[in-house]
């Protein structure tokens, strides 16, 4: 996982060295990228051209470099870690040729499109 904003790497460093109780994110273990020229934010379609900052866009990219899922929140709507993890696990599961239905969670059955009837017989309430 990586974080991206239009701040400089120096700002990122200062933020990463600030304690959480002071609004920092001390102890963060993922890299924060400095999109100073805003090209990456624009390329991913999350740049607000007026204020020049990015929306809270989340992109799930597979090992071939293909985007498998995306979610974009307005600036005032924070993300949910469990939701990000669930989407990542479902995206990974989908690579096995199965379909992850609504409310799928890791460990639950996914649907094999060739044997969908079996899934419904077993899981219908």
């Amino acid at each position: 996982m990586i974080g991206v904003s239009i701040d400089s790497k120096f700002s990122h460093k200062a933020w990463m060295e600030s304690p959480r109780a002071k609004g920092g994110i001390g102890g963060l273990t993922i890299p924060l990228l400095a999109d100073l020229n805003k090209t990456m934010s624009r390329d991913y379609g999350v740049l607000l051209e007026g204020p020049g900052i990015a929306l809270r866009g989340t992109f799930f990219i597979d090992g071939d470099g293909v985007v498998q899922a995306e979610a974009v929140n307005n600036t005032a709507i924070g993300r949910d870690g469990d939701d990000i993890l669930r989407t990542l696990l479902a995206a990974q599961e989908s690579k096995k040729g199965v379909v992850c239905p609504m409310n799928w969670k890791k460990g639950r059955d996914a649907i094999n499109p060739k044997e969908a009837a079996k899934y419904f017989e077993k899981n219908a309430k």
Partner: protein
Amino acid sequence: MASLVGQKAPAFKLDACLKGEFKQVSLEDYKGKWLVVAFYPLDFTFV
């Protein structure tokens, strides 16, 4: 804005900070691995 789902992720190579060190991070670095990219508005705001 059109969705990027199903398309190649736009390439990037940017300066980054990780655990106090400066380095460059690119999409290429994650070839063969899953990557979650999280954009946010600004440092020192509420995440």
